[in-house]
């Protein structure tokens, strides 16, 4: 395709051909320069940069650690609660027909996954397996056990839905009493809900703290460069131009802190994986350790960079005005 000759253009020499308009080129140059100068300045003061990044990074890692903890407690609760059924004991003397009617009435409910009807005979057989009971049971003339509806609720049922299910079971004709062995699960959910809210608030507060840390670092930086800012303004730099490297510095600090936070969170994750794995083994390996999701690992540095930019933005305009008039 290169062999095809381009039509000859007479008036324009090659030199004046531009791929981008002049002001766009200047704008891009300004950003490239701001990006690199801000990075080099941070690198020129490694200790100060490191401290700022460390404070921010630890502050952001804390909510991540809580998130990790909550997630795993929730998974453990899920795993343990999976086989928790709600039992409805039929009134003594109710026959198989009544039990089946009650069962089919409950099957229609949206909260129910499955229902098994256990006959008095099943119950007796179960009891017989429990050591020490077999002799006692043989001495009985008749089976005293009622029919039992063993209700398996749907997974991830909310506490309200579970309570509604229990209420409707109690109201089902022929049912004597309802035993909800999964009630602890609802309590755990409620506790986890509190924990999740606390984590969100903590993340918010620590996010603000991170923003202030960057803001303060940038403020001090601008103060120490008052002379330079004066010279730049004098030789024709606009305020946005003077400000831009500081905004980029905020972005860099935020990004580095976000990456540090993620690294710390992953370290915590790895440190927790061992003990949680042993715990899982104790529960037939039904609990899998849950790590931080990929979207979170990516969005934390991004969000942190935005925080850094915001922090720098908050202080820079005012500080540069001060430096310019100093």
């Amino acid at each position, binding site marked *: 395709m290169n062999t095809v000759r381009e039509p000859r253009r007479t008036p324009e020499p090659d030199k004046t051909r531009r791929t981008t308009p002049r*002001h766009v*080129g*200047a*704008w891009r*140059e*300004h950003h490239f*320069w701001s990006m690199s100068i801000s990075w080099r300045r941070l690198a020129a003061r490694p200790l100060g940069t490191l401290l700022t990044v460390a404070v921010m990074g630890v502050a952001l890692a804390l909510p991540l650690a809580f998130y990790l903890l909550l997630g795993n407690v929730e998974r453990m609760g899920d795993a343990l609660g999976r086989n928790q059924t709600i039992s409805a004991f039929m009134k003594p003397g109710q026959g198989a027909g009544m039990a089946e009617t009650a069962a089919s009435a409950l099957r229609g409910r949206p909260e129910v996954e499955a229902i098994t009807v256990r006959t008095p005979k099943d119950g007796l057989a179960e009891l017989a397996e429990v050591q020490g009971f077999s002799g006692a049971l043989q001495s009985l003339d008749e089976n005293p056990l009622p029919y039992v509806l063993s209700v398996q609720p749907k997974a991830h049922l909310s506490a309200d839905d579970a309570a509604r299910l229990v209420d409707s079971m109690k109201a089902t004709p022929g049912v004597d009493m309802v035993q909800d062995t999964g009630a602890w699960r609802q309590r755990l959910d409620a506790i986890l809900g509190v924990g999740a809210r606390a984590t969100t608030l903590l993340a918010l507060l620590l996010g603000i703290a991170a923003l202030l840390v960057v803001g303060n670092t940038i403020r001090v930086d601008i103060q120490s460069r008052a*002379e*330079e800012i*004066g*010279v*730049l*303004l*004098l*030789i*024709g*730099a*606009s*305020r946005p*131009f003077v400000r831009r490297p500081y905004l980029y510095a905020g972005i860099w600090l935020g990004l580095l802190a976000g990456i540090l936070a993620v690294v710390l969170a992953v370290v915590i994750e790895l440190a927790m994986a061992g003990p949680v794995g042993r715990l899982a083994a104790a529960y037939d390996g039904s609990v899998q350790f849950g790590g931080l999701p990929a979207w979170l690992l990516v969005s934390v540095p991004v969000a942190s960079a935005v925080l850094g930019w915001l922090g720098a933005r908050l202080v820079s305009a005012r500080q540069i005005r001060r430096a310019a008039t100093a």
Partner: protein
Amino acid sequence: MIGFDLVSKRYEGDHQALTDVSFQVDAGEMAFVTGHSGAGKSTLLKLLAMIERPTNGVVTLDGQKLNTVRPSDIPRVRRKLGMVFQDHRLLLDRSVFANVELPLIIAGVTPTERARRVRAALEKVGLLSYEKQLPGTLSTGEQQRVGIARAIVAKPAVLIADEPTGNLDPQLAMEIMGLFAEFQAVGTAVLVASHDLMLIKRMKKRVVVLDHGKLVADVPATEVV
């Protein structure tokens, strides 16, 4: 290129720095502003750089009336000017090259073009081999030459200097003034504030004399003796 039309400047506290000053400097012309200290030399240059605004009268730069320039457009005006300061105002934590490069970065010039023009400017002031050094390691005269390179690197139409030789011995001062004359020769309007009458006489350029803020003499180059 530079125009003052009945320009007055009164600072707060009733200090009258300039009173009805009028004169023009054309492209390719070099003029000295002289007078005792406090005569208003610095104020004159500050009005051109828009560091101060006149109380009365009109200052023009490159055909633009500065009275009507909005604060946000001041940077654009300053980019038309090359400024040289007595205390050179270099950034001491950056190399000679980086200092001279600044106006080009502000103008949004690409890095390769920047490098070419910075070296050309440094060569002009005879400091090409110093580009990697920090300004603090240079002598006062060399620092002033770096300041001049920074002032002319973006090829401004107007070059102004406030006591550029104030800290230099006569030999170095003469060299610096020689540099200014070279820029005049290539079409730049040059305005230098100086109180060094010996030096001004040797340069044989136009001289504007201020006394207590009033223009008392405007001597053409041909009449300087």
